[in-house]
Structures are given as structure tokens and as C-alpha cells.
């Protein structure tokens, strides 16, 4: 074990996986010589060469499109899209091609490809450096969507994503890149399985469902409400899709009260799917309507970012609402 931040943990994951499997290549903008704008790929080009760590021209269609062709023919690309806000030019390639090649070829082709991309607010990045686009990808059949919230999970989940055979959108909470520090196993065989949620905090009164940068805020909120005697159970979803439904329902049936927290806008956000799943499967267990604490349905504002984002106070108020019902 060593104490690392999330950037270091992700870097270690890539370094170890590239050593383990020489089919793995890293491609993206500024990932080589610079080591990525957030330095997640730092040192990889020095270690593995320009053929396996490639600085590409600035074109997301080209990056994802080429990665698909690589993945279809035996290479295992790990793509970096510099910011999740810049992923949209590649939307067609991701939704129609990457996610569908296995299906539309009748299982003859597959595209094992991980697309890493920093997402979310909290870094004063404004509209183009703060968005949380996870719902688009959860809605897309054929993709897995993964969001770590701790350095250890970042390492273990990224390795698991690289080792399996389906395309993965791996969303990295950029505000936690350097602020989250944690013990991270240095064992190269340490992986965290996909599709398994993490019990971040056990509690009996309210289930809080969160992922990414919202998880530490929910844990803070848990400390606040614990002073008043309320025990939150915080579930870190980790793999948004396919969802670990058992972990969600198990907790909901125990507490009967649910608060869902995410940064993305509310309408058709990931929380809407969680709420629907719970309503369909455990409505009898609910003692209060589900509350969603999310970004509002506005574009991401620059100057009013603190007001836009969920914070400890908003989460506490959400908890109070489900308790007071």
C-alpha cells in the first residue's frame, strides 16, 4: 500500500496494464510528451514509446474512430478525451459504432476500448470544462459506464475496464484528481470488479446513492446529520451501467428513504433511472418520496458554479426532506 492521489493511481493502473499486455495503447490529445493536461499519462511515452502512447491531432472523431478500428483488429486502445465536454464530436462514433459493433456484426466483431475522460465541476471550468454527460452513455445500449470516487477504486476499476471486452466510458471526477488521497494497493493484480457498488458508509436511516465527486460530499453530509442522530447509508454506485441493482435495493429496503445525488442536470439524469428502478421494485419499502439533489436543468454556469453544484448543505436538506415526510 502507498498513499496516492487519483492521478497517480490512474497512472499506475495504465503503467501496469501496458506492461502486462503489449496490445494496449494509449491515444489522445497531449497524452504523450506532455503526459496529459491532468498528467494522468505522465511518463508513459518515455516508458512505452511513441508507438504505444500517441499524441493525436485534435479531432475526437478521429481519436475514437481510429480506436474502434484498432479494437476491431486486436489492439486494446485506452483513449483519453481531454474533457468530457469535448466528447460530443465523437458521439456518433461512440453511440452508433463503438457501442454497436458487437451487436450489429452478430457478435463477430468486438471493440474492447476504454474511453477515459475527466468530467464534472468544482474546478472553475465553466460550461466547457465541467459537464457530467454520463446519462447519454448509460442510455446507449452496448456501453458500460464507470465512475470512481477514490484513488484505490480509480486504479482497480480502470484495470478491470481495460481487462474486459466491452467498450467502457470511464468518467474521472476531475475535482478529486489531486484532492482525494488514499491508500492504494501496489499489487499489479489488484482489480476492482465492474458492476459491483461499494458500501461507502453503513447506516440505517436514509440511503444516499451517489458516484464520483459527490461521494465525498455525501460522506461529509453523513457526518453532519450523524450529530443529530441520523445515520446515512452511502452507496457509491461505481459502475453506473450495468447497475448493481441488488446493492441499491438491499439498502433501500433497509432504510425506506432515498436521496440520489449527482452533478448532472436532473431531467432524464442518471438519478431518474435509479428512482424508476426503485419505484418499480421497492416502492412498498419507501416511507417517503425519493429526493434528488442534482445540478439544475440549466447549462453549467461559470460565476455561479458553487450555487449550481450539489454541496453538503444541499445534501443535508435533501436528507431532512425525506426524514420529515
Amino acid at each position, binding site marked *: 500500500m502507498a498513499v496516492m492521489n487519483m492521478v497517480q493511481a490512474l497512472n499506475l493502473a495504465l503503467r501496469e496494464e501496458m506492461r502486462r499486455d503489449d496490445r494496449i495503447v494509449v491515444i489522445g490529445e497531449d497524452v504523450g510528451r506532455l503526459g496529459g493536461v491532468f498528467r494522468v499519462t505522465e511518463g508513459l511515452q518515455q516508458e512505452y514509446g511513441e508507438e504505444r502512447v500517441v499524441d493525436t491531432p485534435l479531432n475526437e472523431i478521429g481519436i475514437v474512430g481510429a480506436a474502434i*478500428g484498432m479494437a*476491431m483488429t486486436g489492439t486494446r*486502445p485506452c483513449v483519453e478525451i481531454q474533457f468530457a465536454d469535448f466528447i460530443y464530436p465523437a458521439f456518433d462514433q461512440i453511440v452508433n459504432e463503438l457501442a454497436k459493433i458487437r451487436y450489429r456484426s452478430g457478435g463477430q466483431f468486438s471493440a474492447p476500448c476504454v474511453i477515459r475522460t475527466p468530467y464534472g465541476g468544482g474546478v472553475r471550468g465553466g460550461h466547457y470544462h465541467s459537464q457530467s454527460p454520463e446519462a447519454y452513455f448509460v442510455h446507449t445500449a452496448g456501453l458500460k459506464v464507470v465512475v470512481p470516487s477514490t484513488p484505490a477504486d480509480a486504479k482497480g476499476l480502470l484495470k478491470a475496464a481495460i481487462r474486459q471486452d*466491452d467498450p467502457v466510458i470511464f468518467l474521472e471526477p476531475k475535482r478529486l484528481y489531486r484532492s482525494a488521497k488514499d491508500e492504494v494497493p501496489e499489487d499489479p493484480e489488484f482489480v476492482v470488479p465492474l458492476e459491483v457498488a461499494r458500501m461507502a458508509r453503513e447506516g440505517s436511516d436514509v440511503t444516499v446513492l451517489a458516484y464520483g465527486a459527490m461521494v465525498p460530499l455525501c460522506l461529509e453530509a453523513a457526518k453532519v446529520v450523524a450529530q443529530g442522530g441520523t445515520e446515512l447509508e452511502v452507496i457509491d454506485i461505481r459502475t453506473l451501467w450495468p447497475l448493481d441493482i441488488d446493492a441499491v435495493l438491499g439498502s433501500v429496503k433497509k432504510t425506506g428513504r432515498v436521496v440520489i445525488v449527482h452533478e448532472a442536470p436532473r431531467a432524464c439524469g442518471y438519478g431518474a433511472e435509479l428512482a424508476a428502478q426503485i419505484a418499480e421494485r421497492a416502492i412498498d419499502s419507501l416511507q417517503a418520496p425519493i429526493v434528488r439533489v442534482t445540478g439544475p436543468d440549466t447549462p453549467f454556469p461559470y460565476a455561479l458554479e458553487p450555487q449550481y453544484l450539489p454541496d453538503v448543505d444541499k445534501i443535508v436538506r435533501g436528507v431532512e426532506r425525506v426524514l420529515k415526510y
Partner: protein
Amino acid sequence: MVESEVMVQAAGLAQSPFRLIHTPLSANGASRMVRVLDEEGVEVAPPPDLGDEDLISLYEWMVRLRVFDTRMLSLQRQGRLGFFVPSSGEEAAQIGTAYALRPEDWVFPAYREQGVALHRGFPLEGILCQLLGNSHDYMKGRQMPDHFGSPKYRFAVASSPVGTQIPHAVGAAWSARLRREASVATVYFGDGATSTGDFHAGMNFAAVQQLPVVFYCKNNGWAISLPCAKQYRCESLADRAIGYGMPGVRVDGNDVLAVYSAAQEALEWARSGSGPVFVEMVTQRMGPHSTADDPTRYRAAELLEPWKKKDPITRFRRYLESMGIWSAAEEERAHAEMDARITEALEWAEQLPPPDTSSMFEDVYAEVPWHLDEQRRELQGGE
């Protein structure tokens, strides 16, 4: 008059206010069309080094494609196929390029490459089952007709969105280079695709990385209803190659020997590590864009008249006949053989049932996740 002005005028841009305008390739003669046979099938340039057997084989493949095309179109008109994308007129472009491929090369097709697929070894039965969307379709009935492929023949699965396959070919070439394989990734698309961002991305990535990709642009004059004049302003699409820093060549796409020569050279160039090549094949889509299209709404019938005289099959037949290696009897046999093969394969394929309902939920992921398993049971009336 300074040199740049001469070039501007040569490109028909006399009104241009620019003095230092980039030299259009056409002024350098690069837009000259490569041609081996004229419209009468008479040699106008040295032919590629092919023996009689190869020449006959090239011809027979074009005939097979034409017969296939005619049969499928008529099946669709009879209501036995839901949809079809005909490729009549493009036989030389498909067969000439396919003939130059090696088994280790990759093909990233558009949806109008049935001839390339057949030549690649894709079984006729496999194509028919895909067109019918039945239980023997490798694609498991998941895609519209003409969207087929298989890694077995290094023939990727065509998409409907135009041009998306272009960066995929670049990625396949990248894989080949990483593994030190001497294979070339070829990608087929039409003039319409050259307006897409995917085209630009693919051309630029391949050039920057000097990857072994051959870009085959079948310029058939139309992007559904949009003529070339409304798609681009350069004189020739091959001119675009220079902007990406790769060689571009323009060939008569209805001259199978010219197409084969260009393909052969392009593949050698790419295989030798010299980087990508762009090949524009000038042809004409003689039929509709698809069976859902009505070209009489946008294309005057007279426009096709000169192209009928350039028919790739007639033209090459005249050449073979002039060499005394092809006869009317052989012509009849070639047609009848393919016709019979299709009839036999169809009899089998049309009896096959549709795919099993539960197959809808397979291949979304490597393994069926719980939510899809649940939805499968729900659809089948279970819990």
C-alpha cells in the same frame, strides 16, 4: 502575367483576388484521369501485367456482380427483399480494387461493396441470408440489407452513416503496424462521404501517422440527390490528397484495367511503408441510390446516356473479344452460371426461419447482463 496568375486562370479562378493562391493540383496535371482502355475498349496506355486467365477472371467477376445486382433488384421489386442498394455501373471500381487485394488486407466497406465482398470470399449464401435477415445471417438479422461483414474475410461491417468507416480503417492500419504485419487497410466510400468530418479525420490521421491505408473514393456523381457540383468546389477529389500530404490519383472508374493498375500501385505504396494513398474512381451510379429512392426526381435521363457508352462491362468485353479470348458462348455461360448459383442459394435461404426472439438480447455485451435477461423474459411472457 506572374506564374501564380497563370495557375489561378488554369483552375478557372480568374476572378480570385489572391495573388499567392496555393497551386491547384490540376494546374500540375495531377487531375489527369488515369485510363488504360478508351470507351471502345481500345488500349490507350500500357495495360497492367496480367495474363489471359486474370483478364478473364476480372471480367467474370464483373459479370457475376451485374447478375447479382439485377437479380436482387428484381427480388426487391417482387417484395421478397425489404431493401437493396444496387451497384450497377460500379463493377469495375469494385472488382478492379478487390482483385489487387491480398488475403491479409482489410476492407472497410460502405454499403455498396457487394462485389468486393464476393470476391473476398464472402459466401453468396451469407450475403443472401443477410439480405433476408434470417437465422443463418452472420449479423443475426440485426441490420438492414447490405450491412454485412465478417472478420473471417477481413471485411468489416458496413454502417449506414456515411464515412464513419474511414477512421476505422485508419485504426486497423495502426493495429497492423503495431504488430509489424504487412497488411493494408482499404476503405471504400462515395463522393458524399468526402464532406464528412470522419473523412477529414481519417485522411489526416493516416497521413500524420503515415499509416498503410488506401482510400478508395467511388465518385459516382451523386450523394443521393446531390450532384458533385453542390458537394465540393475543387476540380477533382484527388486534389484533396495533396492538402493532407499524401499522393492522390484519379482513375476512370469504369475502366477495370486502370482501376486495377492504380489499386496495385496504391497497395504497394502503402505496404512498403510509404504511407496512405487516395484513389478517386470516377464512375456513375446508373441506378437509384437504393430501392427506396426515385432518381427521376433529380436526375434527367439524358444525363445517363454518355455513361451507358462507358459501361465498364461492355467496354472490357470488347477488349477481351478483340484479343480473341472471349466469345458470345462464354458470355452466355458466365451469366447462366451466376444466375443458377443465385437461384439455388435463394431456394435454400428463403426457406430459413427468422432469428430467434431471444437472440435480440445477445451480443449487446460480451455477456448478457441481468437487466437484459429480465427484459428477455418479460418479452417472452415470463416473470
